[in-house]
């Protein structure tokens, strides 16, 4: 009798332990990864500013930051996020990642950028809030690029064609200067991907100061 009781108790304790471990894992994913990511992003931002002063410019080696993104629509708390070269998991833990091989900011073609939705500082948490006409600013050493959101789309995870120079059109010559954001969808899932397309609206020399729309915080 007491053996049965001990076995049942042991099994119950195991289940409770498993529940606690799973809860801790959720805390780790949704909160703790962000602590490290925010620190990494601050560090990358400082490093970028130093690099820009010392004169080094694009292209950045894989895993290095080369630009900053500003999205007024995400609110002033969002600040700016560094864009790193490459989209491997380790790079995306530090900030946004540029799909290597796609266009660079301002170039003809498609400047494609991936970012986390719910973990690692969740830079693209509110990507579904972006509406046509909203501004996305990208700053490199010498230039501000202002992109305007054109549309959103939800695609399957294997839809790499959204990063093509002309999205969804194979091997065609680009005529537009696009920015494409990719993140997971729905939140807390990887069943699909949320894609936001934007097109270059204007450019501005960094020496002329930050874009007026960014200073005023207009979305």
């Amino acid at each position: 009798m007491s053996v049965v009781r001990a076995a049942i108790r042991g099994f119950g304790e195991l289940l409770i332990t498993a529940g606690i471990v799973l809860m801790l894992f959720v805390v780790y994913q949704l909160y703790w990864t962000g602590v490290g990511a925010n620190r990494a992003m601050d560090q990358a931002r400082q490093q970028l500013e130093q690099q820009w002063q010392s004169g080094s410019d694009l292209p950045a080696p894989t895993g290095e930051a080369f630009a900053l993104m500003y999205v007024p629509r995400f609110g002033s708390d969002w600040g700016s996020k560094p864009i790193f070269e490459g989209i491997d998991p380790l790079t995306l833990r530090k900030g946004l990642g540029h799909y290597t091989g796609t266009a660079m900011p301002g170039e003809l073609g498609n400047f494609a950028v991936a970012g986390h939705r719910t973990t690692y500082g969740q830079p693209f948490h509110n990507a579904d809030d972006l509406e046509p006409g909203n501004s996305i600013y990208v700053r490199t050493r010498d230039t501000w690029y202002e992109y305007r959101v054109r549309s959103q789309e939800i695609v399957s995870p294997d839809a790499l064609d959204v990063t093509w120079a002309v999205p969804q059109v194979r091997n065609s010559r680009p005529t537009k200067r696009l920015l494409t954001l990719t993140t997971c969808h729905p939140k807390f899932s990887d069943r699909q991907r949320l894609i936001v397309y934007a097109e270059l609206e204007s450019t501005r020399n960094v020496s002329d100061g930050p874009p007026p729309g960014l200073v005023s915080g207009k979305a």
Partner: protein
Amino acid sequence: MYAFIWEHLPGNRLVKSICALALFLGAVWVLFTFVFPRVEGLSPFGNVTVDRTPSDDASAASAEQ
């Protein structure tokens, strides 16, 4: 299991409680530092990129998962 640990912790109730808390925090530390970073690739929260499709062209060759 927990009863067994409790019985083998030293001291009176207060000391046992402090030891138990230390054990718990140690377990959390091990999980956060060693276990979770290794298993998080299995969670669905982190996949934010679009992957190569089987019939893909090579233009975005390095856009791997």
